[in-house]
């Protein structure tokens, strides 16, 4: 067990964090309420079958590897002049009203145990505010975690007809003894007719447990497109979610993961159709080598008022070893018959016939398999509209194959 030299997970610690960020009373209260609620909250839902939880979060010693007052990190938060990209403490100073309106409005701080823990303890974050009609490209948020634990918070607000492309990366810097924990909450409030493209590339070290919840509310004619890349971590529990709240809103969730060693990825893509003429497209592909394990859960929930819904979901996992394990559960819940929807998930292996075909042309077995795996990710990568993210993901896949 790790030695408990950390600051206690108590009211004093939470007050200290809140004070250091210069937060108003209401925000401190929200944190303290989340802290109080911890004992009563459940872990985020995971798929269960009789006798088994596909991802076991209960046995993780969150309080053991949380070191709340050490939040060493390297952070870049940059964006174009037209948009505001603010460290959290500055946002508290300059945009209290905006924060008050949106903080916790998309992701309920008490959604589950881990969101509450994150709300109570987050000490770093970014607020991206894009005013009406502004088109902001190239917002970059890079977090390099150098502490044992880090709680990160991101809020994105786009006003009417605004547009923003955000690229977020998480990595780990200096080695730390023992297990680590990264937690990230992302809230997106996409205003009418606005467009948010949010790409995330997680590549933390393999001693780090990673919990992220990214959720957006899309207003009328708004679009929220997510790209979720998971390469690093010991265990990842990630959920990317859109509530299509306004008529004619749209969302795409594109996911890619590549596990090796004994990594465990539990990735979720979820969309709720709550208005008319909404469209969602969920596409995830992942590869697993060695003893890696993946759990995928996708949800398309079509509400009773969601007339004229289009909703598509597909997930494919490629197993590169006999010891890897994958489970997938694509769920489609339809409460309005005026829906065109599809959902599918497959788990497969590299085809021997494909390999043989390539080998008869002179390709050695290893290169042939590498080409097949890289090719497997292409349909997902083609959906990634952010060039830099696509190139990085491509390189990371190529590098992992050649380790």
């Amino acid at each position, binding site marked *: 067990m790790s030695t408990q030299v950390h600051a206690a997970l108590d009211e004093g610690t939470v007050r200290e964090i809140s004070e250091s960020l210069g937060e108003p009373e209401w925000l401190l209260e929200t944190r303290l309420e989340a802290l109080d609620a911890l004992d009563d909250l459940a872990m985020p839902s995971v798929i269960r079958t009789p006798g088994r939880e596909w991802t076991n979060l209960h046995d993780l010693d969150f309080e053991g590897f949380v070191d709340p007052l050490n939040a060493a990190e390297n952070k870049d938060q940059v964006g174009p002049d037209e948009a505001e990209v603010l460290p959290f403490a500055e946002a508290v100073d300059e945009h209290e009203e905006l924060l008050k309106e949106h903080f916790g409005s998309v992701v309920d701080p008490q959604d589950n145990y881990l969101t509450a823990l994150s709300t109570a303890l987050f000490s770093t974050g970014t607020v991206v505010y894009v005013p009406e009609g502004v088109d902001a490209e190239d917002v970059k948020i890079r977090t390099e975690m150098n502490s044992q634990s880090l709680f990160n918070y991101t809020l994105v607000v786009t006003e009417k007809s605004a547009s923003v492309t955000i690229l977020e990366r998480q990595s780990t810097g200096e080695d730390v003894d023992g297990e680590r924990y990264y937690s990230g909450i992302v809230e997106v409030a996409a205003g009418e007719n606005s467009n948010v493209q949010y790409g995330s590339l997680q590549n933390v070290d393999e001693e780090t447990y990673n919990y992220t919840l990214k959720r957006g509310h899309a207003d009328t004619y708004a679009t929220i497109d997510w790209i979720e890349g998971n390469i690093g971590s010991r265990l990842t529990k990630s959920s990317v979610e859109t509530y299509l709240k306004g008529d004619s809103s749209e969302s795409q969730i594109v996911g890619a993961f590549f596990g090796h060693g004994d990594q465990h990825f539990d990735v979720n893509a979820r969309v709720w159709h709550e208005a008319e003429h909404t469209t969602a497209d969920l596409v995830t592909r992942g590869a697993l080598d060695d003893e890696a394990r993946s759990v995928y859960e996708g949800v398309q929930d079509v509400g009773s008022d969601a007339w004229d819904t289009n909703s598509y979901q597909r997930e494919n996992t490629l197993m590169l070893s006999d010891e890897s394990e994958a489970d997938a559960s694509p769920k489609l819940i339809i409460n309005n018959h005026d829906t065109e929807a599809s959902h599918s998930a497959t788990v497969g292996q590299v085809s021997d016939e494909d390999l*043989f075909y390539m080998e*008869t*042309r*002179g*390709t050695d077995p290893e290169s042939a398999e590498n080409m097949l795996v890289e090719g497997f990710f*292409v349909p997902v990568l083609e959906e990634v509209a952010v060039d830099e993210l696509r190139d990085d993901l491509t390189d990371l896949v190529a590098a992992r194959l050649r380790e």
Partner: protein
Amino acid sequence: MATLELNNLHAEVAEEGVDEQILDGVDLEVKSGEIHALMGPNGSGKSTTAKVIAGHPAYEVTEGEVLLHLEDGDFGGAFEIPEDKRTWDLLDLEPNERAALGVFLGFQYPAEIEGVTMTNFLRTALNAKLEEREELFEDEDEHEEEEEEAGYDTSPMEGPADEGEVGVAEFQQILSEKMEQLDMDEKFAQRYLNAGFSGGEKKQNEVLQAAILEPEVAVLDEIDSGLDIDRLQDVSKGINALRDEQGTGILQITHYQRILDYVEPDHVHVMLDGKVAKSGGAELAEKLEDNGYDWVREEFYETA
């Protein structure tokens, strides 16, 4: 001048519990520059012969040999083939090693490979073939030394950046030329390997790949099935060019006499029950077209 020689080849499905003999003593010899047609009814072992030559893992050879005889100069004047490395038993080699020595298999049902462009695949394959060939003919002692020297100098990230012997620009030129010869649209080069190709396009693509890899012997498994007449002519032109311009020996498996009007065979063989039952000249194919296989069967089992 290379010769592919099959001697008394026996093979069965390499699956436990299945001991069905598919090849029952095949003898066949194909030399550079010759065109052979291999005909016969369904299930007679034609496709299996092709797959066994190429090294398909689904078949186990139980008896016999598949030899490739090379002569100095077969891989171009500059490439020296030492005397003790002129005959290879292909059954000892992996499929990609057989390809490196100049054996090509054109598939009846080519694999569709999503996400890998034709250009990328073919250039990778061509460079891999050239590299493997160097390795096969390398002096063993020399080889070890080189491995040691290579050590850890190259990082894994350098893999994709390594251009190989044939660079991108040079390859583009080779590809364009060969595609033009085969009357193929340039847009194919950027499409994913066979993905979404029509049956005819796939077959054309098999011939294109042979043209680029310049094999000593190409085994073409039903390259003519499912082709319309225009494409049949394009494909035939490609096969003739392989023989005429590169001196490739062709073993063409077919059900139909039709393609033989365009690709005139020097030799025609008929397979029955896992053996070559009869061999002859081009006229044999015409006789088969008119009279079917029954007379061959009768003749074969009478004499046997």
